[in-house]
């Protein structure tokens, strides 16, 4: 009991701290309460996830500002309530509940890691709220209370692996899976093995290794990768699902042992531009990642988005780089707009009505694709990009899908 009240206190303190940094002072906010509708953000501004997750709060605000500039939703001004779960997974659930019951938000935008999403899930299901989740993830979940803005493996990892197995992508024949030891890497690798099994690729063509979260000494494993790569059987690749600071540590050792991207390309499934801050990427050129958006995506929608972000950062003194945009930022941005469109279409902010109205929505995503939702589930159809790391810590587009593949929530390769 005591502990719970402490956590509550902490949460309230975090809420208070962030609320006071909102552009509108509390008093005015209350006075306008009748004309505003609240949406909540559940992204950590402190703890291990702060560097990458923190920027999503600002993108949500930026999207809300855009909507307000265009007249708001159903005549009401959108107000963003920001919380700080502090990279502490149970606190996501606590603060999520607070957003729903105390702040009475119309929808929540939040979570980066799968474990934080799993923590909030019972809360949003219990009170029939709506959570917009902006990360590509392992799938195997289909809640009516979560809008999965980003792709499950069927429309992100599998197309990327397919490309690498094509002649143009280097005819990959053998696979070294290296991941951090938790649910996301293990599920992804399970599906990959099922997928390869289906394609007639035998178990001798892959190896699977896991390291503890936060592992930093990759000497032995990179030695193993070299030995694996030099064995017969065709072009090897590494499917990397380590997370956080293990990513730069891995690449540093990889380069120092003299492995070039065209000897053994690494498909870094969680690698974003921010992971390479602090690394000299000139020796890493050519390593790959796959997301539903890359900063170099062509088209005026992307130019507009990047320009907006840069000016938003400048105008609001945002502590993140104005010239870096990563996929989860764009997904969050899409999410706020999709929610506003659904509410407008439904003529109400009630969750069941918004959910129903979501079916058939389309939105011109900065990625250049027309993303869409169907009545079938709460997944969003997105495009697929494969990026190739360049000298300036960014990703060039190596390949992108023709259209937006239909997401498959439950992988058929899971139990094969």
């Amino acid at each position, binding site marked *: 009991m005591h502990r719970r009240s402490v956590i509550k206190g902490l949460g309230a303190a975090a809420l208070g701290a962030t609320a006071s940094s909102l552009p509108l002072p509390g008093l005015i906010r209350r006075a306008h309460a009748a004309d505003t509708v609240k949406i909540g953000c559940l992204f950590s501004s402190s703890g291990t996830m702060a560097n990458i997750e923190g920027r999503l709060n600002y993108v949500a605000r930026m999207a809300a500002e855009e909507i307000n500039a265009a007249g708001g939703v159903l005549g009401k001004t959108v107000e963003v309530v920001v919380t700080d779960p502090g990279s502490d997974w149970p606190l996501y659930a606590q603060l999520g509940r607070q957003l729903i019951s105390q702040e009475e938000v119309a929808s929540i935008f939040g979570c980066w890691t799968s474990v934080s999403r799993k923590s909030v899930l019972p809360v949003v299901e219990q009170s029939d709220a709506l959570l917009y989740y902006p990360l590509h993830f392992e799938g195997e979940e289909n809640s009516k209370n979560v809008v999965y803005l980003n792709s499950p493996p069927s429309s992100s990892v599998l197309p990327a692996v397919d490309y690498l197995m094509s002649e143009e992508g280097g005819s990959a024949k053998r696979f070294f899976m290296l991941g951090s030891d938790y649910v996301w890497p293990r599920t992804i690798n399970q599906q990959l093995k099922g997928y390869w099994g289906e394609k007639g690729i035998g178990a001798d063509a892959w190896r699977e290794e896991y390291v503890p979260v936060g592992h930093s000494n990759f000497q032995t494993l990179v030695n193993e990768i070299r030995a694996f790569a030099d064995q017969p059987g065709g072009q090897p690749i590494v499917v990397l699902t380590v997370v956080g600071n293990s990513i730069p540590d891995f690449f540093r050792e990889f380069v120092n042992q003299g492995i070039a991207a065209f000897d053994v390309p690494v498909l870094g499934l969680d690698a974003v531009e921010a992971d390479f801050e*602090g690394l000299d990427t000139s020796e890493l050129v050519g390593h790959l990642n796959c997301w539903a958006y890359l900063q170099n995506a062509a088209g005026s929608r992307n130019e507009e988005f990047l320009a907006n972000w840069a000016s938003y950062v400048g105008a609001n003194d945002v502590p993140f780089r104005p010239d870096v945009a990563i996929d989860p930022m764009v997904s969050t941005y899409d999410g706020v707009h999709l929610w506003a469109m659904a509410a407008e279409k439904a003529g109400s902010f009630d969750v069941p009505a918004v959910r129903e109205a979501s079916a058939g929505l389309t939105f011109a995503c900065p990625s250049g694709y027309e993303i869409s939702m169907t009545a079938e589930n709460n997944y969003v159809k997105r495009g697929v990009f494969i990026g190739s790391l360049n000298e300036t810590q960014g990703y*060039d587009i190596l390949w992108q899908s023709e259209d937006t593949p239909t997401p498959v929530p439950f992988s058929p390769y899971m139990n094969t």
Partner: protein
Amino acid sequence: MARRLALLISLICLALPGGAAALDRVAILAEICSEDFRAQQSALESLAGAGADNGREGAVWARAVVEGFEGRDLRCGADGAYIEGPEGLVSAETLARAAPEGDLSAPSVNLRLRATAASAGFVLALFTEDSIEARLRAAGRLDRRREAVSAPVLAAALEIERDPAIAAVIVEIRTSLLLGDPDPARRIEAIGAIATDATLRNRTTIAEALENESDPSVRAAAEAALAEIDRTLAIGKALATLYSGVSYASVLLLAALGLAIIFGLMGVINLAQGELIMVGAYATYFTQELIRIVLPGALDWYLFLAIPVSFGAAALVGIVIEATVIRRLYARPLMTLLATWAISLLLINAVRVGIGTQNLEFHQPAYVSGGFPVIGDFIMTSNRLFAIAIAIAAFFAVLALIRFTTLGINMRAVTQNRAMAGAAGIDTRRTDRLAFGLGSGLAGLAGLALSPLYNVNPTMGTGFIVDSFMVVVLGGVGSLAGAVVAAFGIGQINVAIEPVYGAVAAKVIVLLLVILFIQRRPEGLFAPKGRR
């Protein structure tokens, strides 16, 4: 020079009967710009042959195109291709300055094409580089990257090569290309040439050839070569494991050395030790930034120039901590536990707020980047070698300091019997402060040595604290030699288990072993003599 060149060119022309048609530059560039994977591939391959067919001028041009393509500086427009150079655009056809009309786009460069382009670049370097070192480097790289290599091109390169060392490398590559030759003697020669470099990759090449081989003499040669390679590989593998263990041990030792003094000799449980490592790493970073501004020429040596800075910065922080907090808590060790934990949080968050959470970018001079092959597949990585060297140097410096200096004698005296040492006229308070400063400074030095290995950010220290205590406790509280043996043991065991049971299990097994050992022998490996 020019005459010699002319002679060489005529030699090549003689070597290739009928002369050679000039490359159709426009057609090749059109193919590269075509976005058709196969056309691009064949264009790059034909460029690789430019040195053999078109003399030096053709080779220079081909190399410019290939390198422009690989470096993604090539641009395609409606009226031809261009290369983005340091002084603006040049025409890819003539390499002269040019102003394009209309929009330019970059052709897609996937991994396959980059590999071919890199290979072609090395081939062409043999024809165009004037410096012997550059040609030798190119020939060495060619050995691993053979996408665009063919026997006639290598023959042409041999014709003009005057340096015997480079010629030998080229001959070897050419010989190894003969593995599919109809003449069995040639195949044996090829096996011999491949086997000179005993790597797993070459072993695979020979083993694959052996599968389709019917000639008994070739089979015998291949089997003998495989056995020889296997022996070398086994040695290389053993050395690689040893090296991994030693380098991991050096990291553990670096992190634990300061703690061996603060906890081992003084008995202070310092949970802020990891943050002192972080302070050292940040001090290294700021030294680098300062040198970048003040003395850009010496930037490569910043790691050495930062040694006193990182030691001094961490020692200063340590002395301040000692003077303000720990001094008051010597009688209450459990309070120090809490107080130093608070200090650790304070330091982390001060850096987070003041500098930011991102990983710092360090300049990587040649002596801490890359590695060099030793034997078989064993590569010695330079950054770890640097850490090993610093660890050894720091250990012996500390050992000498404790053995031979007055401060060392005082420290030992105070450790063994504080009251008696005080009675003998040693200023115990000053000794405590200096010892704490020394222990902190060593942590700072660890931060410097670890900066080429690990991410430097505010929370980097937290990962080291458990390992450091493990090493100190296992080695025997108060024993420096014990810390070395413990670090080495933990390092080796960890590295030996990791390939078999995985990294997660290795951590668990090592911790279990440490627990079992401490239960059997609570005083650690080397029990200190004397009264506590």
